[in-house]
């Protein structure tokens, strides 16, 4: 009758992921045994480095799960980083800075939704417009010589931060990093168990079916893209207000695109994307550590390549294996 063994599609990919994680965990434990200080530093740096990627991936995921391909994450982040920093300097309040960052992200999202959902523009072009717009606007209006006014402080959870290895990594961190982890789990739960999640997934798979069941595809996509914009805005705020502390031209540096790779690697699920982003974050912090220590006498150009190299390899392996939402990129026709 049928062939003897029918491997579930994607089963090999899952095995690969589990294997990867086991080996990474083993490496961490070993290195902690050798040098605790460096390990803690590398790990918490990995967590920090992964934060904008996770947030970017959540932004992409929100819109792609509802069927809109979003390559404008980079631009959304950049606008938020810029606007958040400016507001922070002008008002002197970090809180205002973060909130303005969110608003800027949501506004960029609104613009993107208007182009891709209402005007039914090609979604790749709409995303590209957002990216170019962001580079242009932030570059043009960037007031040079603006000094930093401090950044978000690191917060230690009293008792928990004393636990060896896990304590300093997981419980001594800045607010946005912590918020990111909460967002990941909240989003995962909502996407797979809530009414909104079911409708979002249905819209991404078969918008017409959703429409015939009385769901407003346009409203849902607008909502998702704008919430996604807020989350990308948080990533931007993280860059300019928490990680670096000032705005620099083009400071997102391709993170919006790596976030896309992360999202695909994570199979369009929040927790999957989180795991993938951690892996990327780890590769980045290991890379910096390697440059710092000069353990390997490699030129820094080579170690600096590491995150991008991993992006290419991961995409080459997974992009064909992981299935995107079925009607991704197709605008819903209604007469």
């Amino acid at each position, binding site marked *: 009758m049928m062939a003897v063994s029918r491997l579930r599609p994607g089963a090999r990919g899952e095995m690969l992921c589990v294997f990867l994680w086991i080996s990474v965990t083993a490496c961490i434990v070993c290195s902690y045994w050798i040098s605790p200080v460096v390990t803690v530093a590398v790990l918490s740096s990995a967590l920090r480095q992964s934060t904008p990627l996770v947030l970017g991936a959540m932004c992409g995921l929100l819109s792609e799960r509802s069927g809109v391909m979003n390559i404008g994450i980079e631009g959304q982040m950049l606008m938020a980083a810029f606007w958040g920093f400016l507001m922070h300097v002008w008002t002197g309040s970090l809180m205002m800075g973060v909130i303005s960052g969110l608003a800027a992200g949501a506004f960029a999202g609104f613009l993107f939704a208007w182009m891709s959902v209402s005007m039914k523009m090609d979604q790749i072009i709409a995303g590209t417009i957002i990216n170019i717009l962001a580079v242009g606007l932030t570059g043009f209006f960037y007031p040079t010589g603006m000094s930093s006014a401090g950044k978000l402080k690191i917060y230690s959870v009293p008792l928990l931060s004393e636990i060896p290895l896990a304590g300093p990594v997981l419980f001594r961190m800045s607010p946005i990093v912590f918020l990111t982890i909460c967002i990941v789990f909240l989003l995962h739960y909502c996407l797979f168990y809530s009414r909104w999640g079911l*409708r979002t997934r249905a819209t991404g798979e078969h918008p017409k079916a959703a429409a*015939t*069941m009385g769901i407003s595809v346009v409203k849902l996509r607008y909502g998702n893209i704008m919430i996604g914009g807020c989350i990308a805005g948080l990533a931007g705020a993280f860059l300019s207000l928490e990680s670096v502390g000032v705005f620099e031209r083009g400071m997102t540096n391709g993170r919006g695109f790596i976030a896309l790779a992360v999202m695909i690697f994570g199979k369009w699920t929040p927790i999957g994307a989180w795991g993938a982003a951690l892996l990327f974050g780890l590769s980045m912090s290991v890379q910096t550590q390697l440059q710092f220590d000069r353990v390997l006498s490699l030129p820094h150009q080579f170690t600096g390549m590491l995150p991008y190299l991993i992006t290419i390899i991961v995409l080459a392996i997974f992009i064909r294996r992981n299935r995107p939402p079925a009607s991704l990129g197709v605008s819903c026709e*209604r*007469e």
Partner: protein
Amino acid sequence: MDGFPVLELKGISKSFHGVMANSGVDFKLKKGEIHALLGENGAGKSTLMNMICGLLQPDRGEIFIQGNRRKIQNPKIAIQLGVGMIHQHFMIVPGFTSLENIILGSEPVTRMAIDFRKARKQIAALSDQYGFSIDPDAVTEDLPVGIQQRVEIFKALYRKVGILILDEPTAVLTPQETEDLFRVMRRLARKSVSIIFITHKLREVMQIADSITVMQRGAIKGVLSPGETDEQSLARMMIGREINMISNDRSAGAGRTVFEASGLSVNSSRGFEAVSDVSFCVREGEIVGIAGIQGNGQMELSEAIAGLREIASGNIILSGKVMPALHPRKMMENGLAHIPEDRLKYGLVLPFSIAENQILCTYYRNPFARFMWRNRKAMLNNSRELMDRFDIRAGGPEESVKTLSGGNQQKVIISREFSRNSIFLLANQPTRGLDVGSIEYVHRQMLTLRDKGAGILLISSELDEILSLADSILVIYRGRLISMAGKEGADRASLGLMMTRGLEREK
């Protein structure tokens, strides 16, 4: 049948960019009746129904539900008014389970999450009430079409449907599944659900309808009851002329072999073997019919022959030459004509014009191309001639095929494929979804081609089509071919049995 109409349409009109799809339609649906809606392709049946379920807005006219005038601006309002529609193309999210598909849009919720337990209970209660059931946890894309359709019916019942619209529900069903569907429909009607049933199969209409409305060119031609009419006069009313059942009464000349498959195995997209070790041949002037229920490997077999799918093992031999796999142009140049199963996906480029679609296989050759340039004039001349010869009804050669009716779209494909000098025709479900007039037309064209000496492989799940056209009949079951002795040994009952059970039960 007692009482007032649950649904009444008065003077409904609708046009698309100047094309009248409905003009002044009056329609009444009584409570608890099964009302068949007939009409040729493009008569405007689906358009009319889409206006009742809120997907389209009428340009003029009024809709009354339970005697009250209603404006149905979107599907949500239609659902609230108890209107449910099962579309010609199913509206099911393929990756979802039946349960998720049923509750989508009307989910019961606790504070934050969906209350799956409650949903399950509600579905079980519906099963009890209406006496048919489904597996709520099955993923819908793995289900046979008959069951998917049942999920669609559950979707409507879950929303307390009072008016159920079924748009060509039997087009893709097996005879057995059709029987099941009719049983369900009768039960629903008894529970006072009113049903509008669209179909092209007149036999079904006579079998199940309480009353019949015939549409022609966007208007109502007449309302009848099945007692006062028969299939012939219904067909005449729909098409406006007499229909002759085509049958193949000429015995096949034993000519040269034009096509041969030897030991052919083909894998499905999911990786398992969909066609296993199949061998057969088609001779000049012969029609070989492959009967079978959809999903038994027909798609993979025909794709392999057309050069669209990899061959796992075995050979395809066209006019004596072994053909390489995955080389559709080579197949065509050696004399293959192909009517694909899914005409919208593989047969036509929808946004292109009729003329462009007619040269899809020959655009690179004289006279349509000179060096690097296309010859527009030759293309248009060719198209005008073909439209004339094959009676394609459309505004002109430059009209986009997207807006043509199903029958005319099929005619565009046939005009393209039959006007090349082909020696072998691969026709997969050539008449699916077509009205009786178009079916007659397609069959006649196939017989003409046969008379010119071409060999034809006809793959179909319509028993009547196979029985009336084929010279020899094969049955495909789970990727294997079972050969019938000849045309004489085959009748509806034994063929139907083989299609559903293969040979195991026969012996």
